[in-house]
């Protein structure tokens, strides 16, 4: 425990400082102009500086570490990987496979992210969603995605 463990308020403040500075520096790349005739860079730079200042405020007023760490969320790598992986699979298979494999893999993978789902349950859920995808979205709403394709069109 102690200070080595990231204090969430403190980390959040630092993160905001970084984002704010990044935005301010990014804004400086565009024309700043004057108050009467602002260029495109003025507003983002100003907002970025403000954000960095608020970040300093958050980091300074951070509650003492360790007080609320009991509510720390346990990491859930399997669930996270399956949800993220499922959505990435939807995009990749959407380009190289079509709507049917994309839908199936998204629902199948993300369903497996929940430990209580068996492979069989995930399979049937995915199959059911494929039916909905084809009937409602492809046939009914004319979604502009081919059902099955072999090339990356």
């Amino acid at each position, binding site marked *: 425990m102690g200070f080595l463990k990231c204090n969430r*308020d403190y980390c959040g403040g630092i993160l905001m400082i970084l984002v*704010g500075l990044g*935005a301010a520096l990014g804004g400086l790349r565009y024309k700043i102009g004057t108050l009467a005739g602002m260029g495109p860079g003025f507003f983002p730079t100003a907002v970025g500086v*403000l954000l960095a200042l608020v970040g300093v405020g958050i980091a300074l007023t951070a509650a003492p570490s360790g007080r609320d760490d009991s509510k720390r969320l346990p990491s859930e790598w399997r669930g996270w990987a399956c949800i993220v992986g499922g959505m990435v699979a939807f995009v990749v298979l959407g380009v190289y496979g079509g709507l049917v494999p994309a839908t199936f893999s998204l*629902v199948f993978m993300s369903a497996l992210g929940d430990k209580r789902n068996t492979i069989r349950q995930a399979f049937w859920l995915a199959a059911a969603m494929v039916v909905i995808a084809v009937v409602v979205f492809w046939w009914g709403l004319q979604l502009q995605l081919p059902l099955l394709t072999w090339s990356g069109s």
Partner: protein
Amino acid sequence: MIDQTLTNLWYGFSVAFEPHNLMWSFVGVLVGNMVGVLPGLGPLSAIAILLPLTFVMHPVPAMLMLAGIFYGAIYGGAIGAILLNLPCHPAHAVTCLDGYPMTKAGKGGTALGIAMLASFFAASFGIVVMIFFSPLLVKVAFMFGPSDIFSIMLMGLLAGSTMSGGSPLKGIAMTLVGILCGVAGTDVNTGTTRFTLGFPELADGISLVAISMGLFAVSDFLLNVNKATFVGSGAKVRFREMRPSKAELKQAFWPMLRGTLVGTAFGALPGTGPTITTFISYALERKLSKTPERFGHGALEGVVAPEASAHSKTQVDFIPTLCLGIPGDAVMALIMGALIIQGIAPGPQLITEHADIFWGLVASFWIGNALLVLLNIPLIGVWVKLLQVPYRYLFPSALFFIAVGAFSTQNALYQVIETLAFGIVGAGLISLRFPITPILLGFVLGPMVETHFRRALQFSHGDMGVFIHRPISATFIAISALLILLQIVAGLRRALRRKALQ
């Protein structure tokens, strides 16, 4: 004036009763009612998921549906809070305090019945306020210059980020992040593309659908996977039990009226969220009560007043959103974003230029609220059953709808990646205990804040004094300063108390 209003209202009813519009309004309240009961899916995620669908719809039914989801969810939230002690929407957390004890004492039906009556009364009151207040506000709003609008938006953003619960500094930080997200894309004044990070797709800016579905749906799933264990204790409610007795009605009357007025006052202030409204009306009832010790153990007043305030606030919230283009909270921001995507700019000209939308909405509120009261009676049992649909089936299916919805907005798969990216960012921010709803408020208002800021200073030739020389603008700047001052005082007091404890 009254004549004119009644004619307009009559016109509104004729719009709202068109079969097509009526159907979508019905779909909206039904979906809203359902997600209001379902834990883990709030009105924000429901509106975000259905947003792509509205792009292909006519603006009137689209608005009726989205608005229906919003107030439908508030009715649904009361059911979850009273019968199951589940505050599905943070605004209903106070309803749980006294609603659930009533259910345990076998009076859940009565609590629901009275809450519904109070809700209907409060919503009707809010609608009447909207009918008479909006045209007046519009007359004033036409005199607003860019500096006035900037100051009002500033106050709205400040109130929204500091009063929505949680750390005020973190709320402000999130609003600023939202504004920065709104900057990405092509600058309307000069045509320069900004912050596209090298992606040509971002030249059109970040899409509202991607940011809202990512922040409010995907991040929710990321945080809840394998953790959400919702158990519904199926408390059965029969219609007969929902009819309150005369004594109970009498007991509920004044709390209902006070709750309604609190909600109306807060609805008129842009930026204040629904949660603070319900908390204040609950606190007010407890303070006024002769027997404050009953609160927390099933006091009827503690259910009626917060529910009434939530409903009148919801309706009155539409006034600043539609008439000034300044949304009160994240849901309003999303609804306003949907309007803008339809090519309709909210603001004082909306009532005259798009009378069908404004008066149609007003009339549909009444129809929708009446529908909800009627619907809720037979459907409560269905919703309680629905609570038992396991989360493990719900979220993979919802992810599919999100992916297809994101794709369909521009027929482009990179939208799905954008949604996912915001989901991950949102989950990270939530676990750092940042409130994420202000991001949306900042995102929707950001471009307008920038435009008015630039225009105001252009007119004044760079003189910053323009914000305090005009009386309207100066008033709102003063209120903003007061808000900041209050937060500093509150923060110092907290720090002193912490020191005293050590």
